[in-house]
Structures are given as structure tokens and as C-alpha cells.
């Protein structure tokens, strides 16, 4: 446990070394959130769309933004560059589990992410006149599902990054993943508003657990057994993808090419 905590601390420090960088990135994130709020404000000025009025949409967008921000430190980019330049070979000699080590690195951003999300929520409450707040039961369900988002997003990013054992360019792979996650998680637009041919796949893919599930719990669209079912689905995806990643890892290792040394 201790070495993994060390990796997590190191990753946090690494992010905090370039404070100005992080700050600028968060300002960018904040303008993105403000932009989506403005777009939806204009869209909803004539009345609710698909059951979402302005108050609910505000909360939805905040949850969507928060789930997109959490656990998205540069862990996957570090891992990708170490595979490309061959440093992964030294990672393999360390007496650590590779997947757990990368997971620890990935979580290094959590501290700053929680702070940024709190600030964004406060700003929305201050500037747009309040925010829908769930009751204690729903809030607890939401908190659990929100915490599950971090490992879920890690497994998806980790599996995607393993593509680097076969390709030479991580950017395209990472962007394709981002596009697919954005669409099918509900971060682009609530899944209920998608046309049927997209809503169908979205319902069975793991990505809905990233945004749609926490949002449904926050907004109280899913209560009681339905809420627990959604949480169970989310937890199941974390486990399936975690162990699936181990299977892929075994194959990926055989595809590894390191030149020179």
C-alpha cells in the first residue's frame, strides 16, 4: 500500500509543480462550463426540453462537468509517453503491480479536482441564483456513485492507453475515446434527448455510468430500487473493466517493442 500512496503523492506534487499551468487549465474548464450554461439558458428560454427545465439543466451540467473533471489528471499521457520512449521497461522491473501503480498516479489530481469542483458549484449558486439540492438519501446515493466515477474513468483511460503498444500516436486514440465517452456518457446532451439509434447503444455501454447515473441520482430521476440498480451496474462495470484490463495487459505486453537501451 505504501509505495502506491507514494506514487499518488508524487503525482499530486508533479501537478502542483506547474501551478500556473493547472490554474490556466481550470480557467479553461470553467469557461467551457459557462459556455454550456449559456447555450442551454438560451435553448431553455422558451420552456423545458425533454423534461429538463433551467434549474434541472443547471444541476445536470454541473454534474456532467464535475464527472468529466474528476480523475482526469495526466496519468494516461504519462503512461503513453513511457510506452513510446521505452521507459515502460523500467516500470516493469519495479516490484509493483503495474495497474495499481498507474491507478495511484491517476488519482493524484483528485485533491485539486475536488477543490475546483467546489469552486464551480459555488460560482453557479452565486451567479445563476441557486442550485437544485437533493434530499439526504439521494445525496448519499449520488456521493457513492460520484466516487465510483473515478475508478471507472481510470479503467477506460487505462484500457485506451494500452493501444499505445500497437500504435505510435496516443493523441488520436485519446481523442476518439473522449468523443465516444462524451457522447455515450450523457456529457454532450442528456441521454433522453438522443435519437433512438444512439440512445440504444448508450443504454448498454459502460459510459452511461460516468455522467448519466450520477446525474439521475442527483436530480432524483432514479429513486429506491432503481437507484440501487444503477449503482450496482456502475460497480459491476468497474470490476469488469478492471479485470478486463488485466487480460488485455497480458496480450499488450507481448506487443511491446523497445528499441536500444
Amino acid at each position: 500500500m505504501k509505495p502506491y500512496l507514494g506514487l499518488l503523492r508524487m503525482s499530486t506534487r508533479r501537478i502542483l509543480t506547474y501551478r500556473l499551468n493547472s490554474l490556466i487549465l481550470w480557467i479553461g474548464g470553467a469557461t467551457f462550463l459557462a459556455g454550456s450554461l449559456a447555450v442551454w439558458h438560451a435553448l431553455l428560454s422558451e420552456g423545458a426540453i425533454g423534461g429538463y427545465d433551467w434549474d434541472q439543466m443547471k444541476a445536470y451540467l454541473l454534474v456532467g462537468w464535475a464527472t468529466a473533471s474528476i480523475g482526469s489528471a495526466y496519468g494516461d499521457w504519462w503512461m503513453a509517453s513511457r510506452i513510446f520512449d521505452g521507459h515502460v521497461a523500467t516500470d516493469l522491473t519495479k516490484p509493483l503491480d503495474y495497474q495499481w501503480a498507474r491507478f495511484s498516479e491517476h488519482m493524484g489530481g483528485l485533491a485539486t479536482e475536488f477543490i475546483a469542483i467546489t469552486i464551480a458549484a459555488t460560482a453557479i449558486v452565486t451567479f445563476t441564483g441557486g442550485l437544485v439540492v437533493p434530499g439526504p438519501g439521494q445525496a448519499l446515493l449520488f456521493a457513492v456513485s460520484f466516487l465510483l466515477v473515478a475508478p471507472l474513468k481510470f479503467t477506460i483511460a487505462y484500457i485506451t492507453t494500452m493501444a499505445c503498444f500497437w500504435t505510435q500516436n496516443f493523441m488520436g486514440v485519446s481523442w476518439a475515446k473522449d468523443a465516444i465517452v462524451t457522447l455515450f456518457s450523457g456529457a454532450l446532451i442528456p441521454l433522453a434527448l438522443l435519437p433512438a439509434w444512439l440512445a440504444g447503444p448508450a443504454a448498454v455501454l459502460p459510459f452511461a455510468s460516468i455522467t448519466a447515473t450520477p446525474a439521475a441520482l442527483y436530480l432524483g430521476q432514479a429513486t429506491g430500487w432503481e437507484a440501487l440498480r444503477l449503482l450496482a451496474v456502475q460497480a459491476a462495470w468497474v470490476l469488469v473493466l478492471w479485470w478486463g484490463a488485466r487480460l488485455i495487459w497480458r496480450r499488450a505486453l507481448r506487443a511491446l517493442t523497445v528499441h536500444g537501451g
Partner: protein
Amino acid sequence: MRRTLRIYRRSLGAHLRAVLEYEADFWVLIVAGLLFQVLNLIFLSAVFAHVPALNGWSYPEAVLLAGTYGFVNGLGPLFFEGTWRLAGKINHGELDYPLTRPAPVLVQVVSGGIGLHGVGDLIGGGAMIGWGLAHSDIDWSPARIGGALLLLASSATILLSLIVVGNAASFWVGGNHPVFAMTLIRTGDMAKYPLSIYGVAVRATFTVLVPYAFISFFPASWLLDKESAWIGLLTPLVALYCAYLARLVFRHGLRRYDSAGH
């Protein structure tokens, strides 16, 4: 000038050959670029299935606007991708090499890479422009066609200049990643929707401070004869100003470059 262009072309060509060595990457990048344009389209079509217009912009008009923004954004990776590697070059002291070569540093930096995802953006954005034009009510004349092409070229100049300005900020910001440029360009994504939906502060900022609105909104407004369409005709002037600014900022930044201890 001709020599500079030749250097630019040959440098870009070398990077293109290098990138084409990896066939899988080629397809992955193009598909990734295309996917983002498809996302824009899905968002618009899902939204317009529920509302008839967005602040006076119909569905085809909104598609035309988003398509223009996407198309112009595809030019960056294709022709100016090297600019995004400037931060890394400064951080690692690799700018020493361009500085010693007998060619303009900016040209060497700008042509230092090629991003094929731009092809996906061009295809997706171009298709959206075509569809939007076909379904919008435009009074075509030779002057309008010429004007549209001029505005498109100007808006491309604005975006490419902003990319240079944003990345040149790495001379001051430091760090290995061009975060300032990423934020600058990502904020511009707000310009794929009609500017009129934003508050007055955003509109003023996007028109005067950072002219994102001239990348797609004002040119498209002119073409579609929207409210205050004449502002679109200022786009070439804004483009000249941005190009000048990019040159100025890069030169000032370059003077701050102090290499890295080797």
C-alpha cells in the same frame, strides 16, 4: 518570401511522410477528427428536434455556423501543428536548433509537425457547410461568392494567428504543455454557436478582446444577411491585425528564450 515558402513546404512534407509511415495512426487520427464534428452535429440535431430556432438561427444556419468553425479548426493541425510543440521545445531547450539554422524561426516552428485529425475536421466541417448552404436561404451572386471565400480565408488567418499567439505565451508561462494555447483555443469553441445567445460581457470579449466571433459568427452572419451583417466585412481587417499580433508576440517571446542547461 519564395524561399521561406519552399522551406515551409519541404519541412511540412517531411513531417507528412513521417506520419504516413504509420497507417493505423493515420486512420485513427482522421476518424478522431471526424468524430468531433459528428458530435457537434448530433448535439445540434438533438436540440433542434425540440426547438425550432436558437435566437433566430434555424437548424441549417446553426449547422453552417458550426461547420465553418469546424472546417477552419481543421486547418490548424494540417498547416500549423508544429506550433503546438513550441512549449515542449522551449522546455527542453530544443529551440537552439531552429535558432542556428538560416531560416525564419517562426516558419521552422510552425511547420514542425502535421496533425492528420485536421483532415477529419475538414471533411466533417466541409460537409456541414455544404449541407447548411444548400438548406439556407442565400441570395447568391458573384460578389457574394467572392466575399464568402475572402471571409473564409480571413477567418482561417485569425484562428492560425491565435494559435501562434497562444503557443508563444509558453515563452512566459513555462511548462512542457501549451496549456495557455489549449485554453485560448478551447474557449473559442463557444463561437460554434450564435454569439447572440451569450451575455453582453462574452459578446464584447469575443468581438474586441479575443476575436473568436470573427472566426465563424460574423462571416456567417454576413453570408446569411443576419442582424448587423456588415460587421462580417471587417473580418479581413481583424485577420491582418491578428497576423501582426502573432508576429509581434512571437518575436518578443523569442527574446526571452534562454535555452536549457545541457
